[in-house]
C-alpha cells in the first residue's frame, strides 16, 4: 500500500519524549535495533513522525536515510496519525471471498474517506489490512482492538453509530 506522509504539525509531550529516550537508551549498541526502536516508538506516538525518526537515527548512530528506508518499507509502520477510532478491514483471501470488499465499500461511502485516510474531525481513520488470522469469522473488521466478524455490509452503519455516539 502506498505510504502517505502526514503534514500535520507534530505534538510531543515531555512524557512521550522521556519514554522514547528510554527506548533508545535500552537499544543502543544492539545489532538490528532500528526495527524494535520503530515498533516501540509507534506504540508511544501512535505513528512515526519525521521528528521521531530523526531522534532514533541520532540516538542509535545510524543515518536518517536508513531509518526512513525501514519505516517506509514495512506496512505496519504508519507515517500518518490515526483517528480516535481506527477501523481496519481485512482483505485477506478468506475475507475477500466472503465479501469484505463490500464492507470496505460501505465504510468508504459512509465515512467519505479512503483507506489510509483520517476524517477531518479526527474521529475515524480507515485502513485495509491483510489477514489478521480470524478467518473463521470472515469477513472481519476491527475498530481499535474490538473485532467484528461474520459481517454483512449493513452491519457497518450500526457499528459506526456505536462509536460516533461516544
Amino acid at each position, binding site marked *: *500500500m502506498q505510504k502517505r506522509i502526514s503534514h500535520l504539525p507534530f505534538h510531543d509531550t515531555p512524557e512521550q519524549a522521556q519514554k522514547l529516550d528510554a527506548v533508545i537508551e535500552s537499544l543502543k549498541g544492539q*545489532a*538490528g*535495533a*532500528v*526495527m*524494535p526502536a*520503530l*515498533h516501540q516508538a509507534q506504540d508511544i506516538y501512535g505513528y512515526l513522525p519525521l521528528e521521531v525518526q530523526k531522534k532514533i537515527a541520532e540516538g542509535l548512530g545510524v543515518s536518517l536515510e*536508513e531509518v526512513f*528506508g*525501514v519505516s517506509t*518499507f*514495512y*506496512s*505496519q*509502520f504508519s507515517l500518518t496519525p490515526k483517528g480516535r477510532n481506527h477501523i481496519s478491514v481485512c*482483505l*485477506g*483471501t*478468506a475475507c*475477500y*471471498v*466472503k465479501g469484505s470488499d*463490500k464492507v470496505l*465499500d*460501505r465504510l468508504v*461511502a*459512509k465515512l467519505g474517506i479512503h483507506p489510509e485516510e483520517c476524517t477531518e474531525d479526527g474521529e475515524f481513520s480507515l485502513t485495509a*489490512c*491483510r*489477514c*489478521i*488470522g*480470524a*478467518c*473463521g*469469522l*470472515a469477513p*472481519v473488521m476491527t475498530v481499535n482492538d474490538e*473485532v467484528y*466478524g461474520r459481517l*454483512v*455490509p*449493513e452491519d457497518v452503519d450500526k457499528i459506526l453509530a456505536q462509536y460516533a455516539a461516544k
Partner: protein
Amino acid sequence: MKSLAELQAVKERSVGSLTLREHGATPNPGSSVRLNVLVCGGTGCTSSHSEQIVEKLHEEIKANGLEDEVEVVRTGCFGLCALGPIMIVYPEGAFYSCVTPEDIPEIVAEHFVKGNIVKKHLYQETVQEDGSIKSLNETRFYSKQMRLALRNCGVIDPEKIDEYIARDGYQALGKVLTEMKPDEVIELVLASGLRGRGGAGFPTGLKWKLCAPNQADQKYACCNADEGDPGAFMDRSVLEGDPHSVLEAMAIAGYAIGATQGYVYIRAEYPIAVKRLQIAIDQAREYGLLGKNIFGSGFDFDVDIRLGAGAFVCGEETALMTSIEGKRGEPRVRPPYPALKGLFGKPTVLNNVETYANIPQIILKGADWFKSIGTEKSSGTKVFALGGKITNTGLVEVPMGTTLREVVEDIGGGVPGGHTFKAAQTGGPSGGCIPASLIDTPIDFDHLAAIGSMMGSGGLIVMDETTCMVDIAKFFLEFTVDESCGKCTPCRVGTKRLLEILEKITSGKGTLEDIDRMEELCYYIKENSLCALGQTAPNPVLSTLKHYRDEYIAHVTEHRCPAGACKALTNYSIDPEKCKGCTLCARNCPVGAITGKVREPHVIDTDKCIKCGVCMENCKFGAVVKK
C-alpha cells in the same frame, strides 16, 4: 533442570492434572477435581470473546462453591473455528459451541452442579439419538484428522510449561543431549523424510546436514513464523497452543548444527502468539531448558523473539534474515545459501514453525514411525487452514495423501448455502487453483505441483460458483504488486504490468492478444525474478488460465463475467413482473439509486448504482436480477 531425572519428576508431578482431559476418563482418586473445562484461547475464539466466558465461568464456579472440583483451562485452538467460541467439558467430552457469557450460569447450574449436560448448547453432531454424547474423534470433522503438529493444541494450557512436560515435553531434547551425537540427530531427521512445511518442501534433514560442517564463531538456528499468506493461520495456532514444542525443536536443531542462539521471527500482527511465546521462553529459561549447560551436557542455547512489521517478502529466508538485522527486508542472491552465510553473515538454519513442531516426536518415536504416515515422498501430516466458502472453517491436520475431496466434503462439511464447489486455492499468492474436476487429487507436495498448484504453507481457500477466477487472479496480483519489495525489475515492473492486463480484462476491455501476452509475461517473471516471491507471483494467473481459460475468454469476447463477480461487467435490474413494490430495496440502497412508488415496480438507476448487491440480498421475491 540439571538432569533427566529432574525432568521426570516434573512430569510425574504434573501428569495427574491432565488425566481427566479425555472422553470418558475416570477422575483421579487422589484429587478433588472432577471436571476440566477447556476454553479455546486461540485468536478466532478470543475475537468472539472467549475471555469473557472464562471470567464468567470463574464467577459462577465461585458462586456455586465448586472451586475445588472444577478446573478451568485456557487452551490453544481446537480447530473448529466456525463454531467458536468453543468450550469442552471433560470427562464427558461435552463440546459446547457458539458459547456466550449469558449461557454460562445455566451450564454451571445444570451441568457442573447437577450433572445434566445442557444439550441445546452442544455441537449437535455430538448428540446421538439415544441422548448420549459421541466422542469428538467420531465426528465428521475430527474422524479423518491426525494431530501430530497440533497434538497439544486444545489439550494443554500453553502458558504452563509443566503441562507440556506432562505430555513428554523436553524428553526429546533430553534424549538428544544425553544419548545422541549431532550427526545422529541429523541422520534421524533425514531418514524420517520430513520436508519443510513452509511451502517449498525442502528436506529438513538435508538443510541441517548442509549447515553442520560449516565452521564459524557463531551459528544460528532460526524459526520462520512470518506467516504471510492471507488466509493461513497454522503457524499462529501452533505458537498459541503449543509454543514449547517449537522451542524444544529449535534447541535440538541448534545441537545438531552447532548453533547456540536462535531467533523466532514472528509477525507483529499475532499479539497472542507473541505473548505466549515470550512466556514459554521465560519459563524454559527458568527451568534451565534454555540457557547455559542444558541437562548438564555442556550445550548452550537461547532463543529471542524478533517482530516483523508487515512485509510479505520477509517470509523468504534471505529477506527474513536481513529484516532480523534491522534493515529493509529485501532478499539477496543465493548462493551463498544461509547454510554458509545467513544471519549476520554466519551459518544459519531456518525452519518453519510447523516443521519444528514435528521434530520432538520424530526424535522420540523414530524415523520409521514418521515415515509410516503419509505418502512415500511426503511423510507425516500437514496442517491446513480451511477458509472461504466452506461450512467448517477452521484448522485441520491430515495425513499427507488425503484427497482434497475428503478435506472439503468430509472434514469441511462441504460448501454452504446450496452453492457448489468450484475450486480450492492452495499456496496463497504463490500457489494455484485446484478445480472441481481434480477434487480427488491426493494432497502432498508432488501431486499438487504436478497439477500446477503447490502445497504452500497450508492456506486452503474454498470457492463456489459465485467466485470469478479472473477476479481471484487479479486479487492475488494486487497483493504481490503491493508486496513486491522493488529490488528486481522482473518482479517490480512485471507484476504491475500483469495486474494492468488483468484490470483491463475484468473491466471488459481486454483482447485475446492480451491473454497471450499475459501468459508470455508470466513465464518471463517466473524465470527472471530474484526470489521466490517473484518466481511464484504469476502462479495464480497461470493456474487459472490452465483450468478456467473459458472464463478469461468470456470476459474478453462476450464482455461477460460468468460468475457475475466483476462489477464493471454486471448490472443490476428489477424484474417488473416479480416486483411487488415493497420498497425494501429502495430503503436499503446506500446510494439512493432505487426509485418507485409503494406497491408499484421499482427501477434501478444504473448510473447511480454502485453494484453492492444489497438490493438483491434483501429482495424477498427474487425480483432483482444481475446480468
